């Protein structure tokens, strides 16, 4: 096991250039290898590809949330210059070997209506594809959509989750209900323990929170290019996806293409946040049409389509009941969810609430008095699926916002209440109420660091003096803590949750004849800097300069094994696999070195890229020489094969459990309802850091996405099911001027689960931020009688909440 020492703690110090060989690069703020290409326009995104002869696909989308398709006439489009083909959903109905995939049938009786790339008989959300055109240019293809005549018979929209539950309007006739599944998780020592806690505890808070629908809005819309090899039978799919390996398998299954003939490549990918963790209609349309027409087919998504036809996230109603004894120690927890699946189940749609189910207990000691159930329903809106955090931000919001409600009820400081419930550091590894084992944690440390960074006691003093009667600028202090279940995932645990695949990751490490190193990974980065971080892991192992390591990824022909990038898994699963593969390469090199130097393997030391013989300082052999010996194979030991190359598949024994504390300070203007975030502090403990520069970047971006849920973002539908926020003009992705700077604090508690001691950090910021900001806003206004505000806390909602609270009789008693 390699100890990662020399962790640089100065958050502002960036290293210039690369580190000299053998110095141990892990933990250094190395600048990214990816950047020069991205900064100069050299990087090629899917839509940048030049593909001679490609036909452009455009998709006609339903303007109705729910409508029978009576007839589709594409003849007008076909009559236009430059249009070569046009099809209705019915025209293509026999093209699909299987419906579009849902890989997570969470219960045996889950209802999953068959979903095809184009709807043939019924449209079930605004944006549902009903017909398509292939033309010689994108502009012609899009123009031609207007010449397609579709007759619809509109049906009532279903956008309210409780209305969906009532089944007054059933969306998918063939399943006869809008309920997809109910998934319970009850953990009690004795039956009825949870109810007993609710009946007998000193304090119970009962809250309803609405996780509004969010639109991921990666800056790069999706794009697809399918290139057939008509006479050889091979098919290459280029796609702006996070999941080339999953996409390859699913495309083969859905289209009946022999998997060995299917290759998926992701060129540069411009962000994902879960929205590119899917198998989409347009990918399947491009491949199938390219295959049958024997010509390249491409599609690029416009932003308006992205808002309507790429998955949405969150979208849950949460009822949470939290019981505590007279000291505030939690005695029981009950959660009821209604999950909004949207119109269809996409790749992992039904599993998202399950990922959160295990995190409703937060970072606290929770007794076995836990009663969770999620009922998920179909609605006539865009399908939902995993969006940054996927179930875990929702769960964290509920427990952290409820903890604040409990603290207010008990009239104690919210940070103090949390401390009374923290799982103590010495209890780790800690078997939680769910049976899952939390690997490591030091919640008091993370909280203490954050507390110190904001000077918490002084802040509370300032708040008391500022929030006097009549004050129109009220100060609020928000605290949130979190545990994140990431490093997805141990395959056997996934099996117990009915997930259709495993959670391993693959790495191949080879030392080339000239001693340069190639790392082949199954992860699929789209902004995370894997090329930099993975080369640092290998460089540290081999004692070489990271510049001498190249990372190959995101092409199933080059990296055939992998399960891709999502769920903060790439480092704790994929990165760990790379470290293990490096160790095995070194073991092999050691055998060759021992043979060459006529020494005993056990007497060899490997340091700084050189094998030396203990006690014989003149006998040494650099890795470069061994690599060449392995290549020529002129003089290898009898049991050693030529070349230095090892492939490792690592299935993690446990999830990894990053944690942290966020604190923010807001000032709410009671006259305008405007919230100003004055300060934001994030202490995210993700175990050892490979590159703190990248870790900080992930936290910054994550925090702002969570803050954006709290303050700005919401997919708004009208009662007819029309998406009112179908672009960046209406959907409020914040700009630089809308958000504060973020101060990151340091806490490092290595994971004992893997040899690198790493945990993952991609989702952490998002998980901590929304409850932190909302807790601050309610904290600012609770003195005015405001009990809660649902997200996003827009000025009008805040203003209204203040005025309603003030108008209520005995408003001071509502405190």
């Amino acid at each position, binding site marked *: 096991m390699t100890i990662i020492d020399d962790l640089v703690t100065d958050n502002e110090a*960036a290293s*210039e250039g690369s580190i000299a060989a053998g110095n141990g690069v892990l933990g250094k703020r190395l*600048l*990214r290898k*990816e*950047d*020069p*290409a*991205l*900064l*100069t*326009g*050299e*990087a*090629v*995104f899917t*839509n*940048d590809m*030049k593909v001679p002869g490609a036909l452009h696909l455009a998709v006609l989308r339903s303007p109705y949330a729910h409508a029978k398709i009576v007839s589709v006439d594409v003849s007008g489009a076909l009559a236009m210059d430059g249009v070569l083909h046009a099809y209705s959903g019915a025209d293509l109905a026999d093209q699909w070997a299987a419906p579009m995939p849902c890989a997570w049938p969470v219960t045996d009786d889950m209802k999953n209506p068959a979903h095809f790339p184009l709807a043939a008989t019924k449209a079930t959300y605004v944006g549902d594809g009903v017909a398509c055109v292939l033309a010689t240019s994108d*502009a012609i293809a899009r123009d031609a959509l207007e010449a397609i005549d579709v007759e619809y018979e509109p049906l009532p929209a279903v956008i309210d989750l409780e209305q969906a539950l009532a089944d007054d309007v059933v969306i998918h006739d063939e399943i006869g209900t809008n309920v997809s599944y109910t998934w319970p998780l009850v953990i009690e020592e004795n039956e009825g323990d949870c109810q007993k806690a609710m009946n007998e505890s000193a304090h119970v808070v009962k809250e309803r929170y609405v996780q509004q629908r969010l639109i991921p*809005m*990666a*800056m*790069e*819309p999706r794009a697809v290019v399918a290139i057939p090899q008509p006479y050889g039978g091979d098919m290459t799919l280029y796609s702006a996806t996070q999941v080339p390996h999953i996409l390859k398998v699913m495309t083969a299954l859905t289209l009946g293409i022999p998997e060995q003939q299917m290759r998926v490549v992701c060129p*540069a*990918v*411009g*962000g994902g*946040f879960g929205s590119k963790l899917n198998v989409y209609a347009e990918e399947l349309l491009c491949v199938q049409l390219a295959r049958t027409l024997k010509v390249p087919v491409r599609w690029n998504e*416009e*932003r*308006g389509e992205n808002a309507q036809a790429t998955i949405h996230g969150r979208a849950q109603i949460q009822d949470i009941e939290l019981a505590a004894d007279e000291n505030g120690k939690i005695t029981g927890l009950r959660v009821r969810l209604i999950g909004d699946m949207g119109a269809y189940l996409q790749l992992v749609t039904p599993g998202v609430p399950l990922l959160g189910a295990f995190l409703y207990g937060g970072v606290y000691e929770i007794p076995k008095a836990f009663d969770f159930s999620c009922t998920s329903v179909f609605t006539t809106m865009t399908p939902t699926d995993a969006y940054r955090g996927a179930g875990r931000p929702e769960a964290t919001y509920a427990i952290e916002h409820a903890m604040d409600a409990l603290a207010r009820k008990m009239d104690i400081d919210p940070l103090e209440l949390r401390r009374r419930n923290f799982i103590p550091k010495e209890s780790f590894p800690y078997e939680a109420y769910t049976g899952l084992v939390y690997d490591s944690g030091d919640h008091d440390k993370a909280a203490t660091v954050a507390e110190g960074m904001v000077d918490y006691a002084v802040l509370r003093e300032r708040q008391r003096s500022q929030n006097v009667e009549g004050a129109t600028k009220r100060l609020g202090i928000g605290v949130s803590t979190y545990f994140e279940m990431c490093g997805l995932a141990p395959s056997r645990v996934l099996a117990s949750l009915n997930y259709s695949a495993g959670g391993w990751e693959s790495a191949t490490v080879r030392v080339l004849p000239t001693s340069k190193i190639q790392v082949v990974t199954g992860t699929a980065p*789209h*902004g*995370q*800097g894997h090329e930099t971080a993975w080369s640092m892991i290998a460089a540290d192992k081999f004692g070489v300069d990271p510049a001498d390591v190249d990372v190959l990824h995101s092409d199933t022909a080059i990296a055939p094994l992998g399960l891709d990038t999502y769920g903060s898994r790439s480092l704790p699963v994929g990165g760990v696999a790379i470290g293990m593969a490096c160790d095995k390469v070194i073991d092999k090199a050691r055998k060759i070195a021992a043979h060459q130097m006529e020494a005993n393997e056990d007497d060899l030391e490997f340091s700084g890229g050189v094998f030396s013989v203990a006690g014989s300082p003149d006998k040494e052999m650099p890795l470069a020489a061994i690599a060449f010996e392995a290549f020529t194979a002129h003089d290898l030991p009898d049991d050693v094969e030529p070349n230095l190359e090892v492939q490792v598949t690592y299935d993690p024994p446990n999830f990894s459990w990053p944690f942290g504390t966020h604190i923010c300070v807001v000032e709410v203007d009671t006259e305008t309802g405007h919230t100003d975030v004055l300060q934001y502090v994030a202490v995210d403990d993700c175990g050892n850091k490979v590159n703190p*520069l*990248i870790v*900080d*970047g992930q936290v*910054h*971006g*994550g*925090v*702002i*996405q969570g803050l954006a849920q709290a303050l700005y973002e919401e997919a708004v539908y009208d009662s007819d099911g029309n998406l009112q926020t179908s*672009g*960046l*003009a209406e959907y409020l*992705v914040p*700009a*630089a*001027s*809308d*958000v504060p*700077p*973020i101060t990151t604090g340091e806490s490092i508690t290595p994971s004992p689960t893997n040899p690198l001691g790493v945990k993952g950090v991609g989702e952490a*910021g998002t998980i901590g931020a929304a409850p932190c900001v909302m807790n601050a806003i309610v904290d600012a206004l609770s003195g005015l009688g405001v009990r809660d505000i649902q997200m996003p806390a827009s000025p009008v909602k805040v203003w209204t909440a203040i005025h309603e609270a003030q108008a209520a009789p005995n408003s001071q008693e509502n405190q």
Partner: protein
Amino acid sequence: MDVTITINGEEHTHDVEARTLLVHYVREHAGLTGTNIGCDTSSCGACSLHLNGEAVKSCTVLAAQADGQEITTIEGMADADGTLHPMQQAFMENHGLQCGYCTPGMVMAATSLLEENPNPTEQEVRIGLEGNLCRCTGYHNIVKSVLAAASA
């Protein structure tokens, strides 16, 4: 119609439809795909480039309007010998980019901002870049990059 535009010092003439946007001219006709498209409402700024030295969103300009004028795209920012423009260098050194999709537009907008205001405050940088959206960085390191470029 024929439209002639000098792009990164090189004259281009292409026969384009009258409705062609400058961003499509640059990407599809001149073949310079460093300028990205992120929306269809002139909201995101990913397509920002310099028209006669000033940042514009190239989705809000018709190619025909740029006829006879000079533009600089992200491909024209680094020196011929590969030395990055100080703004590109500052983004690299301050981790001002992650996925890199908004980055060309962000760099073009930021250089134009410093032309107008060589020594901006943090708040002036934030307001100056509010027409350019980034989904990855939370803007923290973008602002830091621009301030670093200003003091370089």
